[in-house]
Every structure is written in structure tokens, then in C-alpha cells.
């Protein structure tokens, strides 16, 4: 029997459990480091102490009020976007699928910019609660992904067609966002500008709270849906003939993925690129295992956003460069690499 000369995949050499543990370890270290870094260095053990309830008053203040929110926000949002990307890549059976490519990120951005334009007054304050912002993002995101589906029509089962329509819709949403930024009465320009590139610097605990509350049911629903991902790995006819209602299932997964991304980007802005890369790296590391893959995707996504935010704080201080810019700069070459590689999986 001929064996192809392929190096053994990582998950076979080390075991999935060990790889996931290493990723968890790296995640914890990076999180602590991200809290430690800033205008003043706080030693890692002090950070750990404060988190566990100890520490002095000033240290507590810096850790809990200044640094923790942005690290938490980056972790939660990064994980949610990566989870969304994981679902999209599996359901489309295409490793180039991501919330950004399918128009979800730009749709959400448009939703938020319109929300800020409509509900701001002259004194730069929102006339309604900021809690509605994720709803606006979700409406924008769902509108975008629905349009992608409606336009691709009967061809929506073809991953390539879907991606092409997604890219087109994303471009339109992006253009409209820019137009509204320029001509619309957006008083909270700073808040809206955060959108165009993505940043976690201005986030508050109350915003994190809203994000978490919205994400919990969505993540539970996504995890429940994930149990049917393996039959959906097959072609349409095969997956349906083993009893999966694929058309309905596919729409459910797209909906949940759009929700995950829109909730996250409602607060941290357009950081879509990690939704492409994190699940892809996770798949390289842990292979096809579903829950390990989801966990690894989420942790890698969290680390990427925490890392990007850390980088802009350390390297560009006192300028606040949006973290989304960093993820895009790192992500774009990787995207090109994926595109140029010999295409093996697309049918």
C-alpha cells in the first residue's frame, strides 16, 4: 500500500489534548502579560495577585479599571469572531470563508454607523442606551449575510459563489459606511471611526457586560449546532441522504455565525481578519476534532486580538493605532498565502 510522503499531522505527533493544553497555557501567559504591559510595568506575579483578590490600591485600580477591560474585551471578541469563522469555514467547506469575507463585518459596521448617526444628539451623546448598539450591528450583519444568500440564490450551495457575493456585499457595505461617515450627522465620529479599523482601547466594563450577556445564549446555540457539523462536512447529496436537513442547518449556522461576529464587532470594530486566520491555524494544530478545534480557534482568536492590542500599546505609544489594523497587516499576507497555495479542498 503506497503511503504518501506527507509529514505526520501535528495532532498525531503530540496528541490533541497536549496541544490544547499548550494553547491554554499560552493564552493565560499572554493575558497576564497584556495586563502587565502599559505605561508602567506591573510584574506578572503582582498581576496574578490582583486578579486573585490581593494587591495594593493603585495596582488594583490600574489592573481592574484601566488594563483589564481592554484585555477582556479583546479576549471575548477575538474568541467570538474566531468561533464564527470556524463555523463558516466548516459549513462552507472552504478555508477561505470568514465573517469578513461573507460581508458580516462590514454589514455590522454599517449598522453601527447608521445607529450612531440616527441616535446621537448635538452634544455628542447617544439618545438611547449603548446597549442597543449590538442590535444595530446584528441587524446590519444579518442583512448583509441574507443579501449574500438571496443574491446567490440557487447557487448558494456553491461555496465559491457564496464567497464572491460576500465580497461584493462587503465592498458595498464598506463604501456606504464611509459615505455615512463623511456626509451623515455622525456626532460621535470617534466612536464611529473606531469601527473602520477596530480597537478595544475605549471599552468600559458596562459594554463588556452587554457583550457577554448577548454572547452567552449565542455561544450555547452555536455549541449545540456544532454537534451536527460532521455530517455537514460531506457534499450536499451525501449529507442529506444520511438524514441531515442541510438547507435548514446551513442557514442556522450562518445565522449563529453572523450573530457571534456582529455582537463582538459591535464593541471592538472591524477586526474581521482573525476570523479567517484563527480557525485555520486551529485546524492545522488540532486537525478535524470538533470541540478541540472550536476551543483552539477561540483561544487563538483571543490571543490574536490581545496580542494586536498589546503590540499597538507597546510599539505605538502614545498613538492609539487600532488593533484591527494590526490584525489586518498580519492577516493579509496569510490570506495571500492561502490563496496562492494549491487548492485541494474545494470541490
Amino acid at each position, binding site marked *: 500500500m503506497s503511503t504518501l510522503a506527507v509529514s505526520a499531522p501535528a495532532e498525531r505527533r503530540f496528541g490533541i489534548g497536549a496541544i490544547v493544553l499548550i494553547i491554554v497555557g499560552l493564552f493565560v501567559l499572554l493575558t497576564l502579560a497584556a495586563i502587565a504591559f502599559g505605561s508602567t510595568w506591573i510584574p506578572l506575579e503582582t498581576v496574578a495577585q490582583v486578579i486573585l483578590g490581593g494587591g495594593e490600591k493603585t495596582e488594583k485600580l490600574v489592573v481592574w479599571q484601566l488594563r483589564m477591560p481592554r484585555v477582556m474585551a479583546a479576549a471575548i471578541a477575538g474568541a467570538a469572531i474566531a468561533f464564527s469563522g470556524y463555523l463558516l469555514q466548516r459549513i462552507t467547506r472552504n478555508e477561505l470563508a470568514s465573517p469578513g469575507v461573507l460581508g458580516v463585518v462590514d454589514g455590522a459596521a454599517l449598522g453601527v454607523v447608521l445607529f450612531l448617526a440616527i441616535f446621537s444628539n448635538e452634544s455628542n451623546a447617544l439618545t438611547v442606551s449603548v446597549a442597543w448598539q449590538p442590535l444595530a450591528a446584528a441587524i446590519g450583519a444579518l442583512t448583509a449575510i441574507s443579501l449574500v444568500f438571496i443574491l446567490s440564490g440557487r447557487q448558494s450551495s456553491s461555496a465559491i459563489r457564496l464567497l464572491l457575493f460576500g465580497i461584493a456585499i462587503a465592498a458595498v457595505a464598506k463604501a456606504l459606511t464611509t459615505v455615512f461617515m463623511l456626509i451623515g450627522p455622525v456626532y460621535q465620529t470617534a466612536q464611529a471611526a473606531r469601527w473602520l479599523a477596530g480597537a478595544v482601547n475605549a471599552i468600559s466594563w458596562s459594554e463588556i457586560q452587554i457583550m457577554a450577556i448577548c454572547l452567552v445564549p449565542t455561544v450555547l446555540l452555536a455549541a449545540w449546532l456544532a454537534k451536527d457539523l460532521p455530517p455537514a462536512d*460531506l*457534499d450536499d447529496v451525501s449529507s442529506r441522504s*444520511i438524514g441531515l436537513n442541510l438547507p435548514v442547518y446551513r442557514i442556522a449556522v450562518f445565522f449563529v455565525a453572523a450573530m457571534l461576529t456582529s455582537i463582538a464587532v459591535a464593541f471592538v470594530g472591524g477586526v474581521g481578519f482573525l476570523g479567517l486566520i484563527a480557525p485555520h491555524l486551529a485546524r492545522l494544530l488540532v486537525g*478535524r476534532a470538533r470541540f478541540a478545534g472550536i476551543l483552539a480557534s477561540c483561544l487563538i482568536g483571543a490571543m490574536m486580538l490581545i496580542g494586536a492590542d498589546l503590540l499597538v500599546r507597546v510599539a505605538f505609544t502614545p498613538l492609539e493605532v487600532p488593533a484591527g489594523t494590526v490584525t489586518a497587516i498580519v492577516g493579509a499576507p496569510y490570506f495571500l498565502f492561502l490563496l496562492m497555495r494549491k487548492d485541494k479542498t474545494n470541490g
Partner: protein
Amino acid sequence: MADLVPSRIEVRDLTLTYGHDTVLDALNLPIPRGKVTVLAGPNGCGKSTLLRAIRRLHTGQKGQILLDNVDIASLGAKDLARQIGLLAQNPSAPPDMTVEELVRLGRYPHQAMLQPWSERDGAAVNRAMDGTGVTGLKTRRIGSLSGGQLQRAWIAMVLAQETDVICLDEPVNHLDMAHQLDCLDLVLKLNQEDGRTIVLVLHDLNLAARYADQLVFVHEGRVRALGQPEELMKPELLAEVFEVDAAIMTDPVHGRPICIPRGRARAAVQEVA
């Protein structure tokens, strides 16, 4: 024949249109229990569409498919998948999926929310892999298999589904001669040893005539003729359905009818009826 054996499946007035194209036109077809039914016909005659329609895979198909006198439209997706299995024409799975993973997917319709993987599922998977000879390949990845191995792995997946009716859409396409016979012999064994009802779409008319209990000629979205291969392998009928001028002989090895279509460029050396 259809009078003696009660039909497992009755296709009644099956119509399917795509836009202005009528792919299946009020088609009727009995599929006898425990027999091998082979659907044959020229390209685009609707035979693959008919096979998928029997498994209710088309949206907007009109008419009835009766499975033991029950309209399958009343069955749930998983219910139906426990009764009729189907191997697609060009099935595809991720190249990094292992053979065992693929075969285990055949148990999907047998699993429910609060009913995880059971011993019965494991036994069915092992039986399916043994029966198709892929047990030794179970840790191999789909992308590393040869065409024949791949086809056996897919058949194993359909077998693990443990359905009484098995539909296979051109299962021997892209296989060399030896693997074509391996594959069809395996299917015949399922029929003869387990009494399963088999519905096959085959392109090769001589293979169809060799393996069919009931041969069906599908032409322009309708059943043009059905019966035993001897009844259907007639020059006039082949001329009408397949547009070939063919000589019919009896295969001296299997005693089944075979056809030899007359070429237009190469002159015949001997006149046969």
C-alpha cells in the same frame, strides 16, 4: 415479475421541473422488494434525478413515493435515512477525514440528542467496514486513498446506515474493470445474502443487463420500458432509447444479453442479427 413480488417502493406520477425544463414527467415505477433494479438511459434522461427523487432529495418534486405504501413525504429526515440509503454520484468528504470517521457518519440517522454512540453503532460500523474490506484502511485519510478504496469506503458508509433499500448513483464510474466488478459483486452480495432492495444507476448497458433483476429504461423523463434484461435488450428499443444500432448476443459466460453497438467508422466484419 412485478405481480409476483410486492413492490417495496412505488413511484407515482413523479414530476420534477427546473424552470421550463421537465426533467421527470409524471413518471411511474414499481421497485420490487429484495431485487436489483437498474436504471439505465442516455445522458440527461433523468435517471440520476429519479434516483435522488426516490430518496426525496429534490425540492419541488411532485407526485408520490410510496415506501411499503407509506408516502415518504410523511417521514422525517432521519426516519427516511434509516430506511433508504443513497450513495451520491460524486460524493466528497474532507481529504483529512479518516475512513473510520466517514463510515461512522453512516450512523448519524440512528443517533438522537440524548442517545450517544452505542455498541450497536460500533458493531454496524465494523460490519460495514468488514463487508467492504476497508477495515485495514480505517485510520487512513480519505485524500490518500485510491479510487477503488475510496469507493469501498463510501459504500461502507452507506452500509453502516443499515437501510433496507440502497440506492447507488453510478457507483462504478471512474473505476477500472477489476474494481467495477468488485464493487458490483459487493452490491449483489448485499442483495443476495441480506435480501436488501437495491436500486442502481449504471451507464454501461452490458453491466446493467448482467446485474439487473429488473432493468428500467428511462427516456425523456419517463420510464420507456421495464422488465427482465432479456425483454429489454432488443435492437429496436435500443435504437429508440439510446440511438444506437446494436447487435444483441448472449454473453457465453453469464448467459445474460449483451449488446454490441455498431460503429459508424469501422465496418462490420460479420453480420449478426
